[in-house]
């Protein structure tokens, strides 16, 4: 297996005390150590140790759930970097957008990447849900994970929507004005809910600050919790659903 000098070096590294102290195991040469690689690692232990070969085929998932998660990771990283150059205040927020364009090195690229990943994540999450539906992935024992998925879809939409206001340009201001006006149509509580969300009757400085806190703190934390539950439940519910059609095709 280890033929190239690179692989030999890697294997030797994996046998060192330092490596073993980090990963709690040596090289993953046996199925036992390969299992340890999953459940001995805090980040991977929510995944199953073994998976069915059929659920690994591209057609089974098109990696749509994975892509949704990867986009969330890309958004967290680019988002944290954008936060370094952003003030949630009017009109400074808009000036920060201009600074990203003309002053900050690669600022345009950073914002492009964040916005693109945001659009792509909404698409990926929707596509993931429809794909799971047509594969029958919601069937028992996966009922509750489907519900968690619906919550994650809503969180994705709220995350994208709260981020939409932050550039504080005409596009942002009027999109949020149009959207939050709909809430007023809610019977009894509509006006109050809108007031709480915006911190006032109009989209203004308070609304920007509230959306900023929701976008950068509250909603990402909730998303991380629900993503963890979503992944963990795949393992606990016995792996991905393989529809009968696929079983027969073998």
């Amino acid at each position, binding site marked *: 297996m280890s033929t190239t000098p690179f692989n030999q070096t890697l294997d030797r590294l994996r046998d060192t005390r330092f490596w073993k102290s980090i990963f709690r195991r040596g090289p993953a040469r046996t199925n036992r150590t390969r299992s340890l690689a999953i459940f001995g690692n805090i980040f991977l232990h929510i995944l199953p140790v073994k998976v069915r070969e059929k659920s690994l085929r591209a057609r089974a998932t098109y990696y749509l759930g994975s892509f949704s998660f990867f986009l969330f990771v890309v958004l967290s990283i680019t988002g944290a970097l954008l936060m370094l150059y952003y003030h949630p205040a009017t009109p400074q927020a808009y000036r920060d957008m201009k600074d990203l364009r003309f002053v900050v090195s690669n600022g345009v690229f950073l914002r492009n990447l964040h916005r693109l990943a945001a659009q792509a994540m909404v698409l990926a999450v929707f596509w993931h849900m429809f794909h799971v539906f047509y594969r029958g992935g919601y069937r028992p024992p996966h009922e509750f994970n*489907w519900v968690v998925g619906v919550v994650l879809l809503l969180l994705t939409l709220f995350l994208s929507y709260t981020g939409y206001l932050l550039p504080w340009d005409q596009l942002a201001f009027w999109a949020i004005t149009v959207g939050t006006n709909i809430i007023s149509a809610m019977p009894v509580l509509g006006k109050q809910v809108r007031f709480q969300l915006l911190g006032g009757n109009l989209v203004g400085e308070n609304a920007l600050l509230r959306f900023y806190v929701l976008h950068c703190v509250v909603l990402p934390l909730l998303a991380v919790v629900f993503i963890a539950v979503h992944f963990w439940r795949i393992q606990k519910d016995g792996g991905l659903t393989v529809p009968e059609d696929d079983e027969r095709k073998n």
Partner: protein
Amino acid sequence: MSEKTDYEAGLGSNALKNPQRIVFITKKTSAKVKGDVGKQLMSYPHVILREAIAFQLLVIAMVLVALLWDAPLEQLANPLLTPNPAKAPWYFLGLQELLHYFPPLVAGIIIPTLVVVGLIVIPYFNVNIQGKPLWATNPAGRLRVVIATLAALVIVLSVFRAWTVLVPTFVIGGLLLFSYPAPSGDRNSGQFLGSRPISWWVMTWFIVVALTLTLVGTFFRGPGWSWVWPWSSHGA
């Protein structure tokens, strides 16, 4: 088994006298596994490697697009200058299109709530779990229900003049009626559609309507939410 143990096995019905607990181990107590799970692979390295490659491909694609496609930035927000039309983000334009036809309470609150509740309850109905073909049992009776439902939908949508909902509803409704098995017993026509369950039809209808509304709201709506062709208007 010649090892000396520090306990001894015994039998007695008096729990105070003999407080030991006895475990009976019998054969064939494992849970029955339904069917053969087929070949299995270790997550490490098979899943981890694939996910790592997928992540890298995604990042490469995103970087390439982000280098070429700039995120839009308009003028500073101005509450006194309303753009016409003022549009929500693209994923809410389907809702905004509905608001054009229906009162805000219906389009903005009731329909979205029904959609979310509808999505949540999908796995809790046996009809969705069994997924039997719609026309498998009592086709004649079901045909009457389907026609009545479609007629009611068409009437409501026509009263509100909701054309962009009506057209996709016609298309899916037409396919649904087309999938009805012919009385001559010729089941070859539309075999795929004919074997679809009710959940498939409802979800497909929902997706086609949502897609139509979103596309129309994004590309075909101009000042005053009037119909414009994307290639002809520059004023919007």
